[in-house]
């Protein structure tokens, strides 16, 4: 039984890492096609990718959209969670439902709806229209995480501060936000991740200013090439570095 467990674990890891290993291995291919046979080791594709200005612009766009849309979603989600957790409002169940709803809808539908609306309103597509879509998908996530993290402890501390005469803004800024810092951090981090990797909304709602996943998609469509492997490997490297840093900063800290 024990042996079987470890065998299963090993097989599972093999399955999970197989495509990544192949991706990285053939990014060093010394030839035009990223499939066996392996023709030799070369860094030419990394060289090509790092010198590709379209890719670098897309990278910058990705980071911009991810951080700005996540920050916006976090602020709005946090405020709404604070309001709905603390104040008994009529119809608060419905409001919670509305705020969570985008989470249960396919991104494709959100994108198509926004595209229809922007078309009818005569709004030209740009990075900003894609950003609006990203806030839509990240808002429920931020709201849900903040809402779930608000406990009685917070409420008591907030009430105490308010009784002592603190304004609501000060309560939010000095009491609620710091007490919820881990949840806020997690929500922001998750939002950035989702936004960073999002394809279909950006694909449908941008015109020329595309993000990295869309740029990679058009690379893919313009031919099988080890350059795509190189981009994928670089993105992976950056992402896992970020994950490990987060891990160290957020979770390995003495509590």
């Amino acid at each position, binding site marked *: 039984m024990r042996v079987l467990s470890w065998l299963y674990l090993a097989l*599972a890891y093999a399955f999970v890492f197989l495509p990544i290993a192949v991706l990285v291995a053939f990014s060093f291919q010394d030839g035009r096609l990223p499939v066996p046979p392996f023709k030799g080791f070369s860094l030419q594709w990394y060289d090509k990718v790092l010198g590709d200005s379209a890719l670098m612009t897309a990278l910058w766009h990705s980071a911009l959209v991810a951080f700005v849309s996540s920050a916006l979603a976090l602020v709005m989600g946090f405020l709404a969670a604070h309001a709905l957790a603390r104040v008994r409002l009529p119809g608060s169940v419905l409001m919670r439902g509305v705020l969570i709803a985008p989470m249960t*809808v396919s991104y494709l539908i959100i994108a198509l709806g926004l595209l229809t609306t922007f078309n009818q309103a005569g709004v030209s597509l740009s990075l900003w229209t894609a950003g609006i879509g990203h806030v839509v998908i990240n808002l429920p996530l931020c709201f849900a995480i903040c809402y779930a993290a608000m406990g009685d402890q917070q409420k008591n501390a907030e009430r105490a501060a308010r009784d002592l005469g603190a304004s609501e803004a000060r309560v939010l800024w000095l009491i609620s936000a710091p007490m919820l810092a881990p949840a806020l951090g997690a929500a922001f981090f998750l939002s950035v991740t989702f936004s960073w990797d999002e394809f279909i909304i950006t694909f449908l709602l941008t015109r020329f200013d595309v993000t990295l996943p869309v740029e990679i998609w058009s690379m893919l469509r313009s031919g099988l090439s080890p350059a795509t492997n190189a*981009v994928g490997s670089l993105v992976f490297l950056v992402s896992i570095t970020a994950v490990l840093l987060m891990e160290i900063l957020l979770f390995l800290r003495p509590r």
Partner: protein
Amino acid sequence: MTLQRAERRLGWGLAAPALLWTLAFFVLPFLAMVVLSFAHMEGRQVVQGLDPGNYIRAFTDWSQLNALINSVEITLTVTVISVVLAWPLAAIIAWRVPPRFQRLALLLAVLPFWTSYVVRSYSWLLVLGKNGVINQALMGLGVIAEPLALASTRSATVIGFVHFFVMLLTLTIYANLIQLSPNYARAAQDLGAGRWATFRHVILPLTLPGVVTGAFLTFVLCIGDYITPQILGGNNELTLPQLIMLQMGRSGNFPMASALSVVLMAVVTLAYAGCSRWLRLDRI
């Protein structure tokens, strides 16, 4: 009384940005899409109206209906396989791996999660192709003489999906498992239950929330995905998102694309209704 009113006003004020954003950029666009789905095309012109023709076509025209059937079949297959594969993985990490290595084990198991999602599907193409790694390896070992047709099939799409969702489900099931007190199992065994009975009647039901939450997320993300079937399926069959993109991207038929999206939404809503009892979406 006035204090309560002031509180309420404040509450509304704080919730307003999020609510307005969701109304303006989610609810309203969705309604616009529903309205558009009842329009039809005359030549290249969209003619607004109350025409159920697109919906009738979605369910009677075989080429359209087939996409819905394919999508549901693929999604159910993926969900079942992913749950069956992820459960033991989560259990092994939760029970067999020493506690101080568990986070590391989990982190490793979901590490490929952080590759770009377009690239992940593309990598599977390289693995599964006729000249891909699997076929070359099997032929090199003499297991097979002719390369297996793995890429450009439904199997390829399913493998690509399962790869992603096993990681997701492992997370949700693991989170559920470590919250279980070992006392449950001990109590059941004290009362004379065998290992299998303990598992079947105690452990499994207790992990149901984690399983259902993960399975629902799998369902929603899988049935709405365009990239994976587009890259790995080789256009050998269409899924609903692919058909929606075709109607929009190639025919420019936005009303039909809208109607198909509403159908997609309805399927997801049905799935939600089916598992809402166990869902803990606000606890992800």
